[in-house]
């Protein structure tokens, strides 16, 4: 069974997100007169697209990491934060869809090639007498349903993330050094808790 045709909307959205991420960061750096940075992000975006084309799982992680580091450096170089926020959100969407497509590809490999099996079925009397199960239709329906649900959830999450990010960029709070230290300690504590949780889960 070939699931690639019905998956094409997801693939399209992933490609568009990658291009948007690269374009947003390149534009942000470009508007800040840092053309080397623009070139780097265009190259990074293209490399990620190649990775997506050849189903390289690692390319998704590296792509998101590259764009996140780029966005972080952008704040240091004074790149306009709106571009950075759009870039990192689009990169997150592309990263998620890259993994989602990989996940569905595993199912695609599991799925039977019912057309071929139906062709061989006529060779034997037993198979010819047996009613064929409509597995292809069932799997495709399930894949479509999961795809819809995933895109819906992703759209809400990325929209909300973008909104909250924009809100965080506009609202200014002045924190004292003590509060920053406390927040840092809380962050480290939370990180250690997370790692402990993940280790428990993996056991």
């Amino acid at each position, binding site marked *: 069974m070939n699931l690639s045709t019905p998956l094409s909307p997801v693939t399209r959205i992933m490609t568009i997100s990658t291009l948007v991420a690269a374009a947003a960061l390149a534009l942000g750096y470009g508007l800040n007169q840092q053309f080397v940075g623009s070139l780097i992000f265009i190259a990074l975006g293209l490399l990620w697209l190649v990775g997506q084309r050849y189903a390289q799982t690692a390319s998704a*992680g590296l792509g*998101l*990491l590259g764009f*996140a580091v780029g*966005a*972080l450096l952008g*704040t240091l170089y004074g790149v306009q*934060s709106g571009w*950075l*926020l759009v870039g*990192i959100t689009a990169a*997150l969407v592309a990263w*998620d869809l890259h*993994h989602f497509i990989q*996940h569905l590809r595993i*199912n695609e490999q*599991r*799925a*039977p090639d*019912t057309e071929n*099996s139906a062709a061989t079925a006529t060779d034997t009397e*037993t*198979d010819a007498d*047996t009613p*064929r*199960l409509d*597995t292809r239709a*069932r*799997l495709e329906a*399930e*894949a479509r*349903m*999961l795809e819809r*649900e*995933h895109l819906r*959830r*992703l759209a*809400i*999450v*990325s929209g*909300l*993330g973008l909104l*909250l*990010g924009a809100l*965080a*960029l506009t609202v*200014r*709070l002045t924190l004292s050094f003590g509060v*920053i230290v406390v*927040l*840092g300690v809380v*962050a*480290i504590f*939370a*990180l250690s808790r*997370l*790692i402990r949780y*993940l280790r428990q*889960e*993996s056991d």
Partner: protein
Amino acid sequence: MRRLLFLSLLVYGLIIAGLVMVSGNAVALAMPLVVYLAAAFVFSPEKPRLVITRTLSANIVHHGAPATVTVTVHNQGTKLEEVLIEDAVPQGLTVTDGEPWTQTSLPPGGKTEFSYVVEGKRGNYPFRYLRATVNEHLGLFRQQGWLEVGANLMVLPELLRLEHLDIRPLRTRGYAGPIPSRLAGSGTDFFGVREYQLGDPLRWINWRASARHQHALFTNEFEMERIADVGLILDARQNNNVVVGNDSLFEHAISATAGLAEAFINDGNRVGMLVYGRGLEMTYPGYGKVQRERIMQALAHARTGDSLVFESLDYLPVRFFPAKSQIVLVSPLRKEDLSILTRLRARGYQVLVVSPDPVTFEAQKYAPLSEADASVQLALRITRVERELMLRRLRRVGIQVINWQVDQPFANVMRTALVRPVMPTNRIVRIER
């Protein structure tokens, strides 16, 4: 899990970097990632409460027949956004249609069902576990567990169908059947002549014999036809088995035994079976369809095995078979078996040996080599001669031996070998002078 760790580290990296750089913008950049993580956490799946049933279209199927497995999943817990149910198909079964898994979304109280078709070789296939994997739509948090849902599929051996088999055991049972009983009574075959007794039907009077005597009448007698006790012995000794590629001589022996059992039971005989190899696996003698199923199931389970005790046929439990009954041994045979078979014959058993030919079977393995290699040709020839001599010695003691080359149709071989000898007719030979 790796994705969750990666994303968490990225979020913390951005936040800590923002704190170090004292930059609110850097912290704000982490916001989409934080929302993504938070959404995944909020919708992370609870431990699923699933009630799964697995039903088979048939628990017992014949060789080559498909069985449809249907798995029904009921969700008795909270909503499962993405649930993957995978059935662990027992090793040896092949999925010929459908898929043994489904991935779907299940609301509380929801139900899903999937089916697939399996086929397999002879044997017993216990289905036990299903794996359920549940995650939220973003795929960061996951719960996985194995659920035990038992079912059993038995694939009966391939049946080589046979027509009626002519056997002549010394003793028959009291019920009417197809086997000549060597006793006078009602029947169809002429048995002898005796003096007329009151009550004999007139059409039974032998007028030709009566005409030779003035004051006596003679009546024809017919041979009674009865059923018999048949004991099948399947040789499952590992040393006697020959395996060439994926083909095993033992499997042919199983199919032959199944065919013999069915033919004897269809004739109304009382049939028992003994699988001799790993141990003694006995199916006690019985009649009819139930007995047929018992024997087929025993054959479905039969495996070759090594045992020091049962290395030779010396420990054959002879008392398992009624005295003077018909014994059918299905075995490739080896030299050491001659003595016990001779002893069985001496005790009054009518012994029939169906011997799948291991020499010809194994020769397939050397077929490409044998054409070129004279030594292989010579070795094969010597082995064939040795086997022929062994079979001749068995025939000499009154044991019927059928040397079955497994590439030949078993029914044809049996029909040729067990054809009832035709009695010579009285023919007048005129000599022309």
